[in-house]
């Protein structure tokens, strides 16, 4: 294999690695606050791709109706919870979906990429807090295993819906830019740079959010010490919703970005989410830098093995991961040591 091919593969690997990193970050945020392993995040990524693809071809995506439908339920629920909740409910689950729906109806036929992308983000992001509200919050105190199984079940719900809304075919997201550059003899696509740039902006944005805003700090506090957060009046339900909202935004964004490079079908998200999970595990579900390293490793491994033996790509990636995971697990010690 020559140097140029290797560099091209590396570029691919780093690009997908960036996506895995984004998903890992989303998973870590949700897990640290709620102990939920957000398996459906991958499916929301696929929703992102498919929603923007639908909008871009002038159609209204099924996810829009899903948002409207479940928002009505959330609105009704909040009306029974006192005035403050009702006010917030009207805003979040009444005004917002109505505005998005109106915008979609008006603007989708114009097929403008920027608008489609924004609308797709606007449609898919609220799914996170809705999933939290209806699926996980009622059983927030359950065991980690039960929460994981619930997550799995949700995954099947989402792909079932995905098939209904979008059919089995693959679809592509509109690229942010068609430009490409030549770096020596390596061709770097503008989309790759867009992916990396977005990843960088998001990471920086999150760092700012967690480091400088009171709501970000409240989220970190809830992740750091649940009792302490309660005792300073931090609302567990709201922080959970925020965590899930961040994760679903990240997933939607990732879907929009990667969908321009690789067409995705309704069930392709699980695999991507799984690799994001691998990256998160490599960080021990606590460390962001380690997760980043893991994400890049997985991306590059995948890229290289798809070049050499694409049929066995999955097998290779997962088999090679086993020793890495074992080593990491032994390093972090048994869970009781931390008791």
């Amino acid at each position, binding site marked *: 294999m020559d140097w140029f091919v290797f560099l091209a593969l590396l570029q691919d690997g780093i690009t997908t690695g960036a996506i895995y990193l984004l998903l890992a970050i989303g998973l870590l945020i949700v897990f640290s606050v709620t102990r939920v*392993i957000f398996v459906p995040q991958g499916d929301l990524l696929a929703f992102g791709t498919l929603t923007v693809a639908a909008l871009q071809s002038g159609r209204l995506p099924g996810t829009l109706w899903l948002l409207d439908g479940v928002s009505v339920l959330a609105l009704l629920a909040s009306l029974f919870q006192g005035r403050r909740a009702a006010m917030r409910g009207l805003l979040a689950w009444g005004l917002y979906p109505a505005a998005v729906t109106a915008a979609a109806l008006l603007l989708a036929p114009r097929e403008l990429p920027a608008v489609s992308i924004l609308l797709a983000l606007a449609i898919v992001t609220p799914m996170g807090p809705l999933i939290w509200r209806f*699926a996980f919050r*009622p*059983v927030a105190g*359950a*065991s*980690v*295993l*039960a929460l*994981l*199984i*619930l997550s*799995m*079940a*949700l*995954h*099947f*719900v989402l*792909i*079932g*819906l995905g*098939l*209904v809304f979008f059919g089995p075919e693959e679809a592509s997201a509109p690229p942010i830019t068609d430009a490409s550059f030549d770096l020596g003899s390596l061709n770097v696509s503008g989309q790759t740079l867009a992916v990396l740039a977005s990843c960088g902006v998001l990471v920086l944005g999150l760092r700012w959010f967690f480091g400088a805003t009171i709501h970000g700090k409240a989220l970190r506090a809830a992740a750091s010490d649940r009792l302490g957060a309660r005792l300073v009046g931090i609302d567990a339900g709201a922080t959970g919703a925020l965590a899930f909202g961040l994760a679903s935004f990240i997933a939607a964004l990732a879907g929009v970005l990667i969908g321009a490079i690789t067409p995705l079908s309704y069930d392709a998200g699980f695999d991507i989410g*799984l690799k994001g*999970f*691998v990256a998160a*595990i490599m960080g021990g*579900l606590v460390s962001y830098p380690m997760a980043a390293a893991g994400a890049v490793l997985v991306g590059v491994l995948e890229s290289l093995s798809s070049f050499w033996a694409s*049929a*066995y790509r*999955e*097998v290779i990636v*997962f*088999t090679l*991961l*086993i020793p890495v*995971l*074992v080593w*990491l*697990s*032994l390093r*972090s*010690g*048994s*869970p*009781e040591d931390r*008791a």
Partner: protein
Amino acid sequence: MSRIAPPSGLVRPSAIAAAGVEAPPLPASGAGLRPGHGARSLRRCIAPLAAAALIALVPAILPAFYVTLLGYVGMATLVALGLVLLTGISGQTSFGQASFVGLAAYATTVLTKFVDAPPLAGLAAGLVLTGAVAWLLGLVTARLSGHFLALVSVAWGISFFALFGTIPQLHGFSGIGNIPPLRLGPLSAASPRVNLAVIWAAVAIVMAMSASLLDSRLGRAIRTLNGARLMGASVGIDTVRLSRTVFVIAALYAAIAGFLFAHFQRFVSPTPFSLGASIDYLFMVIIGGAGSLWGAPVGAALVVVLRDQFNDWIPRITGQAGDFESLVFALAVIVLLQRAPDGLLALLARFRRRSAPHIEPDAGAPPETPPAAAATPGEELLSLDAISRNFGGLAANRDVSFSVHAAEIVALIGPNGAGKTTLFNVISGVLPPDSGSIRLFGAAAKRLSPRRVAAMGLARTFQHVKLLPGRSVLENVALGAHLSGRAGLLRCMLRLDRAEEARLLSAARTQAERAGLGGMLHVPAGDLPLGQQRVVEIARALCVRPRLLLLDEPAAGLRLPEKQRLAALLRHLRAEGIGVLLVEHDMDFVMQLADRVVVMDFGQKIAEGPPDRVQSDPAVMEAYLGGVA
């Protein structure tokens, strides 16, 4: 994603003539029904006889559709039983059980169809292959914690599925058909009804063996794997090896299911062995209730029947627009989980309210027990020399030295945070010291594991009580006797360990009564007040037959008469030659009991000597007894 489902070409006969089916033979009268036999023996004989009768009778009269359905329920139950042991009881989550089903299914297919071997050879091959693979994987996974294990199981699940699909000899996704039916010599199980009876006979046997296992010494040990490993190690359980054993058992149960599957369906393809199938098995266990063996058939029945019914009705209602069946099924799972996060069995159990535990104070002197291995008076049991241990910059123990001898009670006192529990952890092998040395029973003991240390004769209790809260006091105490038992896996599963088990339980009862727990032997340990739970830990420690006993705040939460009883017990132990090192805050208790007192503060020893001298030491009074001048 797929699941174990009846193949689409299933015929549903309109009616099966029930007439002409003979009445089943009555179970042999006699055994268990003789007048004067205990109710327990009666119950014991009825269950297997009823099961045998059902297995013989039901397949004969069911309509053919239900035969197939029950067949799938039975096979799924086998896998689920393994998962109950693995995930529910020993806490190891596996997303890869379907791979083991597939390994065995393919093994028997290859042998019986391509090599013309008898099905029993296929079973043997399946078990050996699956067992070997599981053992190898277990080497890797037995030390993995929670999420790593789950992820590795996903990894091998995906890998095996890909392998099944790509190895050319296995015909990939077109599958292999015409697999010969089960037969044993001249007897053939080609009829699905006979096959069904075989499947459920297998389920009954596996369930009985699993129940026996859980009811034995090893069963107790397995229960410590789920969140109480430290406690398990402290009574000598080899937690790593046991985890691996449970893992292999679960794989073997799945292998049996795989074998039966191949010969029942007479067709294999990779589809039923995917990650989706593994997830389905987990659904079954979680919905049924992972903590009990009966959760397996309940969950398996629910999942298989629901899937089947949805597959049947939903396409009729909605047309073919999408895969609504799995969507609706997943929604059903979500609803079930939200209503019953601990499983359906747990939900039903709540309707049978447990009556409040009847706790009788146990008056009277502790019964005489034979002395432990004769100890040389004055023999040095434990010697610490300049032990230091840091925790991220904080010096939890600094240069601590003292010793404990046979027939002596030493009290370790000091304010909270003085480093006493850390010292216990260093002595009992949970943490290695950063510097200094330990001699235990005369041998250098700096890096011994808690298990080794227990085998040498050291027993301990924990500051934060580590019990199996759902199990009875007697069972918890019996954990301490783990090393006194020898019964291995097979003996436990075949109920050949009863004599030894009776001895172990009797020893446990003795120690429990010594500790004053005689009136509450069968109460779930988690129902006791915290003070009494500590006494259970002490009784468990006594079952280890220790030469040196480490007690962490044994008197906390006890009322005065209970403290007096405890003090009397400790004096008794001292008279038998046992050395006791105890951490306590109750000054009264300590001062009238201890031979020597060691005072710690901020990780260092600040005083040592007889109680009177220490009590009047001004430095001690200032540091420990508190004061704002």
